[in-house]
């Protein structure tokens, strides 16, 4: 196979866990790419042209191909660039990784963000419901360095970008200790391990800036 003139562009946003996880994968695999920062909510004409249906980041452009949806982009990247594979080979393990990925981006995100902020049943109940869901992940990572096993994988990137490097900043801003060490020793250990990975380190949104942003979004949700 010849080395063609490869062009990889990523449209992203600094605070978006969805585009941050794609950056992690590209960095892990040593893929050179051009990063284009969207100034959300002011979407560029390019973004609207590349993703007319959802109008969201991330968008990966690989040569002439447009890839959308972070999970799908991660899987595509794994299939094109073989170095440091991020998805398991075994179909069952793959199915489990996909299941937990969906769980994080749907259930954990809904409970740990919107539901928590609105706290219609009361804040303590919302916190307990979120913790109940996070307990599933605590079990999943027990006895493993990463969700992916010995090396960082697909699920680590999705969980990492969403939980410690996004939702946790919201929780901090709200004064909530959602995953205390004594209740979630494994998740806390995993977070520390994750932060040591070079491909991850450059993809963590600045803490204070993000706490400020998440707090603002929370206020908007509450007053809606």
């Amino acid at each position, binding site marked *: 196979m010849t080395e063609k003139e490869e062009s990889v562009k990523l449209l992203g946003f600094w605070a978006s866990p969805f585009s941050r996880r794609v950056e992690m994968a590209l960095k892990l695999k040593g893929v050179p790419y051009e990063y284009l920062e969207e100034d959300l909510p002011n979407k560029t004409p390019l973004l609207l042209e590349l993703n007319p249906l959802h109008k969201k980041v991330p968008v990966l452009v690989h040569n002439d191909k447009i890839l959308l949806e972070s999970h799908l982009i991660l*899987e*595509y990247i794994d299939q094109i660039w073989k170095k440091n594979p991020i998805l398991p080979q075994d179909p069952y393990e793959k*199915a489990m990784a996909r299941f937990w990925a969906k769980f994080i981006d749907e259930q954990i995100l809904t409970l740990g963000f919107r539901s928590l902020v609105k706290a219609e049943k009361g804040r303590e109940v919302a916190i307990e419901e979120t913790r109940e869901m996070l307990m599933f992940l605590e079990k999943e990572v027990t006895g493993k360095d990463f969700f992916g096993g010995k090396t960082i994988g697909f699920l680590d990137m999705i969980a990492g970008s969403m939980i410690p490097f996004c939702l946790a900043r919201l929780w901090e801003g709200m004064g909530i200790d959602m995953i205390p060490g004594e209740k979630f020793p494994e998740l806390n250990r995993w977070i520390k391990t994750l932060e040591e990975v070079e491909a991850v380190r450059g993809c963590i949104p600045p803490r204070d800036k993000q706490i400020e942003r998440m707090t603002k979004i929370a206020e908007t949700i509450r007053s809606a």
Partner: protein
Amino acid sequence: MADEVILLDFWASMFGMRTRIALAEKRVKYDHREEDLWNKSSLLLEMNPVNKKIPVLIHNGKPVCESLIQIEYIDETWPDNNPLLPSDPYKRADAKFWADFIDKKVNVTARRIWAVKGEEQEAAKELIEILKTLESELGDKKYFGDEAFGYVDIALIGFYSWFGVYEKFGNVSIESECSKLVAWAKRCLERESVAKALPESEKVITFISERRKKLGLE
């Protein structure tokens, strides 16, 4: 080693239909178990503790949850007959994009037609828009997968058995608004796997009429 495959399912679930179709396309023998969703079995609760939902595919004792994940698992585990997903990474991503679009948009909108009071008209209009988008993606192809029936077709076809429900309670004609899509659905129904998996439209309408009475919507 003999494979043991169990499917925990519910006859009217458009998600369960997907898995039934995928297993049939691959000619996988399985034990089909009907769940009473208002009295869930201990097996269901054990195999899907996170969501407690059907369908659940249990392969040699190990559960796989979420219908689209099940289709991919089935395709990867039994690769010999009828590939359901393209092998090309870009085409694969594209197929999964459309299945994801279906999952994010169709049921959420369609449900509002029959399960929520006062939203029928608005929800029906939105559903037609969504179906028109899918129709435009289909274009002049025989199936969403082009020549071969596959993943996106499987993701959407189950909803066809619910079109009668949406038309009745949404006061809309999907047949006239999205005739190409309906033609596609009829082509899919010519396949044995689909014909066997989809319930009769009348049966679904009766079921939902009963549900609406119980929910106090009638």
